[in-house]
């Protein structure tokens, strides 16, 4: 267990009848950047809260930075930094006062505190704003300050719960640049949750969460290749007929999704000429896309990220995507 930053077995959390986290297992190596990916309400934040000792698990064990979250709460807290989804800054205090508050509560020796404040302010690019009240900061600056504050006590594991939520795309990108910079400079384990697919690609490994359970854990690349196939979408003169032909002649499982006949095939670009030659039904449009994490999510959960926020659906396509993977 020496080189593990996070070690979780059978972790469960129920609120009455509602099972927010349903028995997850997890191992995160030291120095790794690990991501929880899933839609809102998948149980990511609840799992993080247990790992950060804010909430007690209903069952199971979790060891973070070498300490049990249930029995060694203070030790865990000392060794982790947490940036919550919602801001936890005091907007009436200056950036520096917020940092000092943190340093005092974490018991940093005074001389070291000064040094660390300079270091983290520099890292998140707020050195020249240190004496400004947080009230005057933009959303992105506040986030950066929170990340800096989370690092102040030199934690071994940094938890970032939806670090870019509510920020515009440009600011989101800049937050990820700061996180990348942090990884360059420091050997730290980062545990991040997100419901943005493109952000999950920054991680070394991702666990896809759905309805309180981890559906699959792997590197972004491995996950994408596990889905294996390219996604082909065609509009034809007779869609039901096209689906039948695809099944009989090509052995492909196709379905209508968003008004297009959609199916997965190993090499989409090579398949298209064959399709035109052998389908025997007029084709209006064709698009071929490489698998994205969206597809991965759908393949493993039967839902698109968008679907899960609206409700259920798209299970036919998911089955098809699974059929396409070997």
């Amino acid at each position, binding site marked *: 267990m020496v080189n593990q930053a996070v070690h979780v077995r059978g972790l469960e959390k129920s609120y009455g009848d509602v099972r927010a986290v349903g028995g997850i297992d997890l191992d995160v190596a030291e120095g790794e950047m690990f991501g929880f990916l899933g839609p809102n309400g998948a149980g990511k934040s609840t799992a993080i809260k247990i790992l950060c000792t*804010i909430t007690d698990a209903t069952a199971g064990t979790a060891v973070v930075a070498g300490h049990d979250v249930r029995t060694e709460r203070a030790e865990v807290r000392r060794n982790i930094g947490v940036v*919550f989804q919602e801001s936890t800054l005091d*907007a009436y205090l200056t950036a520096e006062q917020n940092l000092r*508050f943190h340093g005092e*509560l974490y*018991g940093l020796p005074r001389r070291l505190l000064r040094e660390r404040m300079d270091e*983290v302010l520099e890292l998140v690019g707020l050195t020249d704003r240190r004496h400004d009240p947080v009230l005057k900061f933009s959303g992105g600056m506040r986030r950066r300050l929170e990340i800096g504050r989370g690092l102040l006590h030199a934690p071994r594991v940094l938890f970032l719960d939806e670090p870019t939520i509510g920020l515009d795309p440009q600011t989101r990108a800049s937050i990820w640049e700061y996180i990348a910079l942090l990884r360059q*400079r*420091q*050997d730290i384990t980062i545990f991040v949750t997100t419901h943005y697919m493109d952000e999950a690609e920054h991680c070394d490994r991702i666990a896809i969460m759905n309805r309180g359970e981890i559906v699959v854990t792997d590197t972004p690349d491995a996950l994408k290749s596990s889905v294996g196939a390219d996604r082909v979408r065609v509009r034809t003169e007779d869609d039901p007929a096209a689906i039948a032909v695809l099944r009989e002649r090509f052995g492909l499982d196709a379905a209508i999704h968003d008004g297009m006949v959609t199916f997965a095939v190993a090499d989409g670009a090579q398949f298209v000429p064959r399709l035109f030659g052998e389908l025997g039904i007029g084709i209006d449009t064709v698009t071929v896309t490489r698998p994205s994490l969206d597809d991965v999510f759908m393949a493993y959960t039967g839902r698109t990220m968008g679907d899960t926020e609206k409700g259920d659906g798209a299970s036919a396509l998911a089955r098809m995507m699974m059929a396409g993977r070997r």
Partner: protein
Amino acid sequence: MSTTIQREVELPAAPGGLAHELRATAMVWRREMIRFRRDRTRVFAMLLQPLLFLFVMGTGLSSVVSVSSEVDFRTFLFPGVLAMSVLFSAAFAGISLVWDREFGFLREMLVAPVSKTSIILGKCLGGATTATLQTTILLALAGLVGVPYDLGLLLSLLGLLFLGALMLTALGVLLSARIKQIQSAMPASQLIITPMMFLSGALFPLANLPGWLSVLTKVNPLTYVVQPMRSVVFDHLDVPASARAALDPAITWAGWEVPVVLQVLIAVTCTVGLIAAGIAIFNRTD
């Protein structure tokens, strides 16, 4: 300045233990002071009401209230108005935990490797200090209403004010554990504090009251802060015994006169109890 943060600069293990907890308490206290300094509007807004009570209501009523010709009604009112002022500021400071929760800062405090006890203590002491500081401005007006500038008197009053402030901040903290919405924080605290203020004898002497009212004033812990304040003031006034008996009557339990020292002791006990209750309730929730 070094720009790289290396894991090799391993931080010494946080001290833990009492010194660390005290530092946390001191820091929470300091945050209250910083916010107090920043918020001048609040200081002046909170001063307006007691000034109105003292100089407008006090002056207006002094022609009607002729309890004693030797003592200015405003002199009688002075300790009560001081208590009233500290009361509302302190309760507000305590209940501000509801705002801390709403704006997330409570979570920053609660996720730190310190006990909730240290945090709640810092919050209570900080609220009590700011409320007392604010009331010091009123205390400076003593001479205008015939209360002498006597060092012993002023220090006793300050001490009692701090005690009352601590009691009410603790009460505010206790309430904030139950109140989750900022919209209901102010009305809920008014609902509890206004009756406490009226039943403490801050605005009228606790003499010749009907039985039900007399009982209510005696079970009100705030009475044991306000009455000692008034007694201290009257100790420093040159008034006939009859006037004092009318304006500063002794608190009696079934005919027994409760000594001022015991009154203060009761107030201290209640305050400690309220702080302990606040700590207990936060340890169970949040």
